[in-house]
């Protein structure tokens, strides 16, 4: 351990702003990307399901037309 106390650790020898800014934004961005990709995956599946439902609708409509 390079630091003697938690306070020391958080202060980062006076560079707290820069170090924590870097680590903070890095993990925020990475989490954001992870979340975005997850959500995209989910919404694609939903779209596919919606399209299947629409297909059903169209088939019904065509049946009725005939």
């Amino acid at each position, binding site marked *: 351990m390079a630091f003697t106390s938690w306070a020391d650790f958080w202060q980062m020898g006076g560079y707290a702003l820069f170090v924590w800014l870097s680590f903070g934004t890095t993990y925020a961005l990475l989490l954001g990307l992870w979340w975005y990709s997850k959500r995209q995956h989910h919404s694609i599946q939903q779209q596919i399901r919606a399209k299947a439902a629409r297909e059903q*609708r*169209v088939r019904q*409509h*065509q049946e009725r037309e005939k």
Partner: protein
Amino acid sequence: MSIILAAEALSCVRQDRVLFENLNFQLSAGQVLYIQGKNGAGKSSLLRLLAGLSSPEDGQILFHGKPLSAVAEHFAEQLLFIGHQSGIHPQLTALQNLAFWSALTAQQPADPYQLLGSLGLAGLEDIPCFMLSAGQQRRVSLARLWFTTKPLWILDEPFTSLDQQLIAKLEQHFLQHLASGGVIVLTSHQALSASYPELQALELEYRW
């Protein structure tokens, strides 16, 4: 019966060429003006004149007996014009395009889904229009004819890229519109199949 739209001694010049001269006709409620002619005869040019998009070289157009320029606003309210271009935005869906036209004219379909479905676009209502085929795009554009209350329709080759079935349906709709006192001006290279009660054919000659 009163005359709704009339042309008096109309003539049109494009570039250096006289397309037609001294053209006259009178249209009253329930009548169709079916403009025919070879390619380049001046059909589209005439329709643009009638729609007030350009002004004639000579002669005048009368709407309910008054010159077009005097009643421009009123005329525009009564007119539905669909030209060679279909007037739909390819990035918007069929529904959004309809909503746009509804907003502008304050006339909307009772049930847009049902309308689009009856035009064979069921299931394609919320897809951007560029993903539709040529004929399907045309159908979206023509959907407006089913919920407008405007009496005067000016349509430039409405049948292009439509299949036979839809052409028949469209002509049925024309008949209905005429029966309710509307007026239609249209061009087409295809013969009209329905039997119109009062059809005025106007043959433009290709002049040089």
